[in-house]
């Protein structure tokens, strides 16, 4: 079965996010006041798997082996068929 998987990778709580800080500053210059801002990256993956669990497990392995660095990152995986 074919699954679409969205993998969102962001920084762990408390990690310095210099790009977010600069973007927040720019928003503030445009008159948008924000309480916080974080950046994240989304990877849209389509893959073949037996079921949802297998698709999830494959995505988790991708994060562990390449997409995320556990020192600074956390991630969220969403599977849809």
């Amino acid at each position, binding site marked *: 079965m074919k699954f679409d998987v969205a993998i969102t990778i962001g920084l762990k709580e408390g990690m310095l996010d210099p790009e977010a800080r600069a973007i927040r500053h720019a928003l503030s210059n445009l008159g948008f006041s924000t309480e916080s801002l974080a950046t994240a990256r989304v990877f849209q993956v389509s893959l073949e798997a037996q079921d949802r669990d297998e698709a999830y497990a494959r995505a988790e392995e991708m994060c562990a082996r*390449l997409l995320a*660095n556990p*020192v600074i990152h956390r991630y969220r995986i969403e599977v849809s068929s």
Partner: protein
Amino acid sequence: MRFAVVQFGGSNCDRDVWHILQDVCGVSTDLVWYKERLRDQYDAIVIPGGFSYGDYLRAGAIAARTPIMEDIRSHADAGRLVLGICNGAQIGAESGLVPGIFTINAYPKFVCDWVHLRVENTTSPFTSQYRRGEVIRIPIAHKEGRYVAPPAVLEKLERDNRIAFRFCDPYGVCTPESNPNGSARGITGILGTRDNILVMMPHPERASEPVLGSDAGRKIFDSMIHAIASGSVPCAEEGL
């Protein structure tokens, strides 16, 4: 004695390191394209600076997962020397040769400048020619050079004397102003568990001849050569 400098697509300091090793230090040095793997044994391997894979995903992340890294890991497991410079340091951290990660500078722009480093460890095969606390002037050129590691890891690095270099001011004092990228505790040179691995963001090959404005980085290469020549680190087995 034979060194190898590994070239990835996007490496751009490979020939600079080769020149210093071959022409300045007089060591026979091969340039090895990463796809060719390590066919021969070497006494030391240098992973040079550059932008392997265009810094896609994270600096060094993709190069760290190429097959030649398995050869480099075996080489390191045998106790032989590995030096990672700049992108080579990012690759070294991404491949787990040292703990932690080099990520986006606290002020998120590319910094190309001369900085001062304080030599913290003088017992490793990379730093034995320095005096403890010696201040050296050396260039940096990176956007992802801020060293980050969990507090427990930083404590362990301090305890195990695995911090080779820290950013400092010209007088050897580590201040927030002398830390150009916001690295944890000003750390920018980290030794592996067995001190036969060193990764560092600054470029010693750009400070190894007086004509370059400083030759304070040359002692890193001299230390390596001395360690191999004196037999204090294992050398390559002949005929393999």
